[in-house]
């Protein structure tokens, strides 16, 4: 019997990055296939190739029902019966449900004129057929995320999709909503259809899938039958190699003095009762899946976002932090994961960027001493080995690694006690990564208290003395570097929602 879907030899190269390398994947009729892998393993890229968003490198083959096809674009994929529901929903909040369902769809208008009443009727029929209770006239933005997702599913189904891909569909759902989603999935799967389910959450994979395929670093690792393996085995397939002994921190914390202490931190939507301490010269890693709340912790501690409760102490003194100005004054520096958006002024020079958090030192009654700024810019460019012909160079023209060094310089010049690095090596190529790690080691030796948020487990293990693991807005455990492995971090990070919530209630 021919497979419903077969992908052979799929590679995808982006400038400078090989995102997929000879990946294979197959889907049987009537089955739910789990697709697992760490962040950046290539799951989303593969699904984008399948649904016509990306064109694969030459040599890739896509077979549907035993016939080879070439997916030209998104519309063509849809005609072939391939639909995807992205993690980020593609909906227009200010239009109604019915308007969203038929947006851009052939036959939704007559010569440019739109009959909303007719669309609403068709939408209602559709929802009836799938047993969804959604008002077609409701404004999209007024629905909960779970209901919005149902609209997306209804839209995908209405194209008579035979193969449906769901990318992290439960990221924003509660436990009950997840159960409802699973019912919908079971209803969808029939002897002629199949579903590919992408998730990080092992309990969900165990519950809903028949088989699981694993990707790692853009390569195909293997496929297992869900009932025949322990979830732990899948996790170790995902992380693959154990990290070698060298890739561990080369420093120890300087003393037992607590520099940063955070207690009972909660935020409105996500964080729940976060407690941790960072000591002098210590690097505390924050591991967890995307959306677990690590960045939110950093932003709340620094003052960039509001918290609903929580005390912050710096060197034993309680500090009032209500905004970023307070955070900076309390001696905290935050290095965002998105340097370009939150960390740098792209059209300003290296030295201006480096001095940005410390301008009060560089002016007299408002008059700026550019000579001093240039001097300190040069000093730190040299210290941090920023590769540039001149400190007058615009940030835009530097590589990612060098840009990151300028952001580090900004907080070093400020002389912050606490440095929070959010994904310090994102967008930085392999060679420069090690340099950033060495810089972190240096900062640790200088006695800074450092928090490093990272989605890359080898990186967390390489730099952190201790590791806090988060899931669903809570810290699910602390691991000392000696006892930490990729596998036990992943286990803590993939604890399902009910477990996390149960453990605390």
């Amino acid at each position: 019997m021919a497979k419903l879907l077969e992908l052979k030899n799929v590679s995808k190269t982006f400038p400078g990055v090989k995102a997929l390398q000879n990946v294979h994947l197959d889907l049987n009729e009537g089955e739910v296939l789990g697709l697992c892998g760490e962040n950046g393993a290539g799951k989303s890229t593969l699904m984008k190739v399948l649904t016509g968003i990306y064109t694969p490198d030459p040599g890739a083959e896509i077979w549907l029902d035993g016939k080879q096809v070439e997916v030209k674009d998104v519309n063509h994929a849809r005609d072939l019966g391939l639909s995807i529901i992205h993690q980020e929903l593609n909906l227009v909040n200010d239009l109604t449900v019915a308007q969203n369902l038929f947006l851009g769809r052939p036959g939704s208008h007559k010569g440019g004129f739109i009959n909303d009443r007719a669309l609403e009727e068709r939408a209602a029929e559709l929802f009836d057929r799938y047993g969804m209770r959604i008002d077609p006239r409701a404004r999209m933005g007024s629905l909960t995320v779970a209901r919005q997702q149902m609209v997306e599913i209804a839209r995908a189904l209405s194209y008579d999709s035979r193969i449906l891909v769901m990318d992290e569909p439960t990221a924003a759902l509660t436990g009950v909503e997840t159960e409802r989603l699973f019912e919908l999935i079971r209803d969808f799967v029939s002897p002629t259809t199949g579903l590919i389910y992408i998730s990080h959450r092992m309990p969900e994979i165990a519950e809903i899938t028949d088989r699981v395929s694993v990707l790692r670093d853009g390569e195909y690792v293997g496929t297992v039958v869900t009932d025949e393996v322990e979830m732990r085995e899948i996790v170790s397939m995902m992380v693959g190699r154990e990290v070698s002994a060298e890739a561990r921190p080369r420093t120890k914390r300087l003393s037992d003095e607590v520099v940063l202490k955070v207690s009972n931190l909660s935020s409105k939507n996500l964080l729940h009762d976060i407690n941790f301490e960072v000591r002098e010269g210590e690097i505390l890693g924050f591991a967890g899946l995307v959306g677990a709340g690590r960045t939110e912790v950093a932003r709340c501690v620094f003052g960039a976002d509001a918290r609903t409760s929580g005390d912050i102490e710096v060197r034993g003194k309680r500090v009032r932090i209500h905004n970023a100005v307070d955070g900076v004054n309390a001696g905290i520096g935050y290095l965002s994961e998105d340097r370009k958006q939150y960390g740098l002024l792209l059209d300003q020079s290296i030295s201006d960027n480096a001095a940005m958090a410390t301008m009060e030192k560089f002016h007299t009654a408002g008059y700026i001493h550019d000579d001093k700024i240039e001097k300190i810019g040069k000093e730190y460019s040299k210290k941090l080995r920023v590769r540039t012909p001149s400190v007058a160079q615009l940030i835009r023209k530097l590589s990612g690694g060098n840009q990151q060094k300028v952001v580090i310089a900004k907080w070093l010049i400020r002389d912050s006690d606490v440095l929070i690095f959010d994904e310090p090596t994102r967008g930085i190529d392999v060679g420069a990564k090690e340099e950033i790690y060495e810089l972190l080691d240096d900062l640790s030796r200088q006695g800074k208290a450092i928090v490093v948020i990272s989605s890359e487990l080898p990186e967390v293990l390489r730099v952190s003395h201790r590791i806090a693991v988060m899931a669903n807005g809570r810290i699910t455990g602390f691991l000392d570097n000696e006892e930490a492995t990729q596998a036990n971090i992943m286990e803590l990070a993939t604890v399902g929602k009910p477990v996390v919530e149960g453990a605390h209630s």
Partner: protein
Amino acid sequence: MSTTEETKTEVEHEAKKEGRSGSSFQQLLVLLALVAIYVFFMFAAPNFAQLGIAIDILSQSAYIGVMALGTTFIIATGGIDLSSGTGMSLMAVAAGIFLAAPPYWNLPLGAGLLLVLLVGALIGAINGANVAILGLPPFIATLAMMMAARGLALVISQTQTISIANPGYKNLVQGNLIPRFELGGSTIAIPNSVLIFILLAIVAAFLLNKTLLGRYALAIGSNEEATRLSGVNVRFWKMMVYIVGGLFVAIGAILYSGRFGFVQPSEGVGFELNVIAAAVIGGTSLSGGRANITGTVIGALIMQTLTKGLQMMGLRQEWQLVVTGVVVLIAVLIDIQRQRRANAA
């Protein structure tokens, strides 16, 4: 090896070329445009090629130019000020009320001028508060102010024309601090308004390039969030920028009303667009982060040169507007092209 060397020197060169306040290349381009337009009229318009005409252009561009200096700071933050035109008429009316003979207040010159500046700062502070504290989009906040200021100007003047007979006031703007002199057979008189314009341009350039105000304005326009996360009090500095903008409008109002010696409350409508155009022609980016004062000054001069030249060619005023519109379009197009290339590199 030689290629890497080449790129390196090229990069070094680029780095030097592009200063913090936009590229000097852009400034050069604008200056060349001014010269080209000027030379064109020297041949196309009879009697245009006289020093007196050049001084006329300078003094007539002074009030728009001065207001554009302040607006340059606001645009540098990524904001916009639509209230400069009617704000100017409100402040001019205020000047009339403070300084004109009874039934008006008939205040001493110094006190009157100070009060006008205060009104300017107040208007700026209201704009600033609406933008920085209440979080209104600058377009909306200053649009509201534009309407309110127009109404207020009519209300407080009771829609009457006010003539300011205060001799000191007229002298401040029209007098000649530099004595008249002979040059090439004609008498040259440089009105004080030109001196004030030049002086304020220097002050503005200093503020933009050498002080916290300018640095933070550009930083906010370049990336407000990154600036906030660097611990800069963004609200405070935005407030300051709008207050400075209001002060420049107040000085513009003094130059405008002093030129004619009387104030009409309904004038000034639409001036804000000339003010914005001057800054934009000069290479200040409407999306913020890039601004330069020299460009703004030249931008104001280009607009006035066009007006004067076309007028002397005998072209109807309506056509002058069309030509000015086309020039603004071309200036911005060139700038966008240049930026695209810069970002692609």
